């Protein structure tokens, strides 16, 4: 499980996750992830390289979204693979956190 973050020109922060968002993966990245989330109000979480998402990963994403939402910020999930998108849909998470496929769209929406 790897995590990276960088500030985009618009001011939004792009968090890139890669690997498996399962129990083991979440234990490895969650602390750093929630720390970055705490410090930013416009967040794009790039899921392009997340090959597996299970309920512990959903828990982590929902926790982050609740925290950003409580500060009136925005969080958007970017470009999940078809199977990861299916997990987001089956769990109803895609009705709580916006999911978009295109980075430019994500940046525009997160800054709106």
């Amino acid at each position, binding site marked *: 499980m790897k995590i990276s973050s960088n500030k985009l020109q618009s001011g939004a922060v792009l968090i890139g996750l890669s690997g498996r968002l*399962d129990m083991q993966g979440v234990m490895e990245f969650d602390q750093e992830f929630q720390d970055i989330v705490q410090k930013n109000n416009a967040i794009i979480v790039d899921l392009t390289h997340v090959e597996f998402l*299970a309920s512990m990963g959903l*828990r982590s994403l929902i926790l982050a979204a609740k925290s950003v*939402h409580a500060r009136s910020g925005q969080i958007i999930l970017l470009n999940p693979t078809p199977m990861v998108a299916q997990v987001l849909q089956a769990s109803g998470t895609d009705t709580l956190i916006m999911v978009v496929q295109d980075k430019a769209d994500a940046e525009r929406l997160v800054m709106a």
Partner: protein
Amino acid sequence: MMPTEPVAAKIESVTLLPELAELVRLSAWVDDIGKRLEMSMSRLYAVQLCLEELVANVVLHGRKFHEAKFSIYVELSPSNGGLEVHVDDSGWPFDPTAAMQPPRAHSLDDAPVGGLGLVLVRRFAHSITYRRDGDWNRVTLLFAD
């Protein structure tokens, strides 16, 4: 030329300790079998997901108060193009088919944190059955096209 033998529908099994670290071993084991059986990507994902959720549940909640040790037995058995998956454990009695489904949240504010594991199992397996057999919980999942 050697005649091609049909691939036998072999039953595969693994016994796990009730520890979170075992989830990594489980996932590698399933991956290996999936590749050997030439499972589709979506089938392999569904099996991985359901096993991760069920076994994590058992590891986190299955331990009996006075009994430190118990075991988890996972079996994969291909049948008629489908796959039958058994998860047996000798932990605290728990029927995942009777567990309450959390209500669907309409906003982030009322969204529960967690509790989505069994929701995913119900959606990704074609069927789930449970029986209590002596000291064992026996869960059977069916995956079919």
